[in-house]
C-alpha cells in the first residue's frame, strides 16, 4: 500500500483544476451547465497557452458575471451587443484571441442583428452560445429558443407557436453565412459530451488562430431552476425534448 505522500507527487498528477479558473464561488445554480462550460474554456485557454492574449466578452444574463470565474481580461457588454464588442477588440488587436459568451436571449433575440452581421463579416472570433431555452437570470421567461408547448413565466400555458412563432434555430441560420467556418452544437450533460464540447471549443480557438472566420459553438444546456426540475430530471427532459429540436453535432465544418 503506497503512502499518500508518494501518491500526490507532481509526476503522478494526471488531472488538476486549471489555474485559469478563479477561486470564486460560482453564482450558478447547482446542476447548471455554465460551470462545466467555463471549466472547458479555461482548460482550452491553458492548454493552448493563450491566457495572456485572450479577451472574453461577457453578456447580460446568468453569465453576466462570467468575468469572476476565468482569470483573463474581460469586457462585459450590454444585452446582445457582445459580437459588436468582440468585432472591435479583434480588429484593433488582431493578434489576440477573442471570444464572446452569450445565452439564447442575448444572442438570438436582442442581439440578433449584431450576431448575424458579425458572422456575415466573418469576424475572426469565437462565439460560445449557451442555449437553455429560457431566460434564467430574470426568472424563467420565454426565450427565442423556448420549445413549442414549453411553459415559461411569460407563456405559463406553454409556448403557442401561432402566437409567438416557432423557436429560432439560430445556429442553422448562421451556418448559411459564408463568414462562419465552424458551427457546431454540443452539450455538457454526460462525460462523453463534455469531452466532445471541449474538442469543439479547442477547434474554434484554433480556427481563430488560423484566421478562418467566425466559429460558433452552441451548447444545449439545462436550466433546472427555470425549468423547475431536479438537475437529473432536467437533463433527461433535455435529451427527450431539446435534442430532437436542436440535434447535436457539427452543422458546418470548413
Amino acid at each position: 500500500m503506497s503512502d499518500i505522500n508518494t501518491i500526490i507527487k507532481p509526476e503522478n498528477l494526471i488531472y488538476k483544476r486549471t489555474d485559469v479558473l478563479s477561486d470564486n464561488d460560482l453564482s450558478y445554480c447547482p446542476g447548471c451547465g455554465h460551470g462545466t462550460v467555463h471549466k472547458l474554456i479555461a482548460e482550452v485557454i491553458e492548454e493552448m497557452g493563450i491566457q495572456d492574449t485572450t479577451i472574453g466578452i461577457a453578456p447580460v444574463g446568468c453569465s453576466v458575471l462570467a468575468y469572476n470565474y476565468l482569470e483573463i481580461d474581460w469586457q462585459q457588454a450590454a444585452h446582445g451587443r457582445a459580437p459588436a464588442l468582440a468585432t472591435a477588440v479583434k480588429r484593433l488587436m488582431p493578434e489576440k484571441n477573442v471570444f464572446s459568451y452569450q445565452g439564447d436571449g442575448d444572442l438570438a433575440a436582442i442581439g440578433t442583428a449584431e450576431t448575424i452581421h458579425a458572422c456575415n463579416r466573418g469576424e475572426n472570433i469565437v462565439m460560445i452560445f449557451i442555449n437553455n431555452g429560457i431566460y434564467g437570470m430574470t426568472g424563467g421567461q420565454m426565450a427565442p429558443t423556448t420549445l413549442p408547448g414549453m411553459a415559461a413565466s411569460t407563456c405559463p400555458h406553454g409556448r403557442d407557436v401561432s402566437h409567438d412563432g416557432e423557436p429560432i434555430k439560430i445556429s442553422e441560420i448562421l451556418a448559411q453565412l459564408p463568414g462562419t467556418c465552424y458551427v457546431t452544437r454540443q452539450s455538457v450533460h454526460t462525460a462523453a459530451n463534455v469531452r466532445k464540447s471541449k474538442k469543439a471549443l479547442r477547434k474554434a480557438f484554433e480556427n481563430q488562430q488560423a484566421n478562418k472566420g467566425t466559429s460558433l459553438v452552441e451548447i444545449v444546456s439545462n436550466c433546472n431552476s427555470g425549468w423547475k426540475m431536479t438537475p437529473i430530471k432536467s437533463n433527461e427532459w433535455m435529451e427527450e425534448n431539446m435534442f430532437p429540436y436542436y440535434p447535436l453535432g457539427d452543422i458546418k465544418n470548413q
Partner: protein
Amino acid sequence: MRELKLMKGNEAIAEAAIRAGVDGYFGYPITPQSEVMETLMAEKPWETTGMVVLQAESETASINMVYGGAGCGKRVMTSSSSPGVSLMQEGLTYLAGAELPCVVVNVVRGGPGLGTIQPAQSDYFQTVKGGGHGDYKLITLAPASVQEMADFVELSFDLAFKYRNPVMILSDGVIGQMMEKVELNEQKPRWTEDYINENYPWATTGKKANRAKNIITSVQLEASVQEEFNHKLQAKYRSVEENEVRFEEVMCDDAEYLIVAYGSSARICQKSIEIARAKGIKVGMLRPITLYPFPTEQLMKRAKQVKGMLSVEMSAGQMVEDVKLAVECSVPVEHFGRFGGSVHSPGEVVEALEQKLIGG
C-alpha cells in the same frame, strides 16, 4: 505652418482623426454627416497609420464597437446625426458606467422622429442632461467653425482619456456641411500597446502575469457598491466642472445685453451683434465652447453687468434653461431661435433682442 485646406466640417473631422493617430472609427451612414465615413474610406488610413475603419450594421452596433475598442485602451470614435445618436444612448450610458474614453460626433439635424436632414440644435437636452439612463454626464464640446471641428477631435480624446469618460462633439448640419479653410496638424503616431499598458493599466490587452485581470463592466449588483461608485462618478464630474469650462466672449466689456449662443448660432449672432451695434444697441455674446461643463460662473458674472440675456439656439428653447439656472433669475433671460431645420437670420436675432428684452 500647418497644412491649409478647404474642407467641409465633416471632412475635417475625418482628416483630423487620421492625423491625430486615432485607432478606430465605427459608423453607420446618416445625413448630414455621411462624409465623415466616406472621407475615411476614401483615404484608406489602414494602409498608412493602421487605423481601423468599419461600417457597422447600425448605430447600436457602432457605439458598442466603440465600447469594445475603448475597453482595450484604444482611441476610437464614431459619428452620427440625431436619430442615430438616439440609438446610441444605450451604448453611451454603458460607456459612462464602465468609465471608458471615446469620442462621439453628433451632426445635429431637426427632429423629433425622423425629422428633417436640415440643421438643428435640438439635441442639447439629450446631450447634456443624460440621454441614456442613470446619473452620468458627457463632456460636450460645441464647434463653431470647420477649424474647431478639426481641432476638437484631438482635444476630445485628451479629455476623454484624462477623465475616462465619453466626449461628445455636438455639431450641427451647418458646421458639418459648410466649407472653410482649415489648418491641419502634422501626422501623429498611434499609441503602441506598451504605451497603453503603461499609461492606461485598466485596458483589456490580455492579462499579464504581473497584474490581476482587467474587467470592463458597469454592473454593480450591491446597491451600496453602486452608490459608492456613483459618488466617485459625481466627484469626477465636479472635477470636470472645475477644470474644463471653455467659452469665448465677443464685445462683452461694455455690453448692456448678452446673447448666449453656441455652434452655428454663435456664428450667425456675430453678424447680429454688428447690426445691433450699428443701431446703438450695446450687445455682446458669450459662446459656450463646452456645453457640459457649462460656463455658469461667467454667466453669473455677466448677469451683474447686463440688463438681460437672450439664448439663441436652433431649438424650441433648451440651453435657455441652463442660462436661467446659471444667473438664478437675477436678470431677464429670453429664448429665440428657429427650429425644426430652419436657421435664423442675423436680422431676426436683432428683432428678437429688441422685442423680447429691450422692449418695443
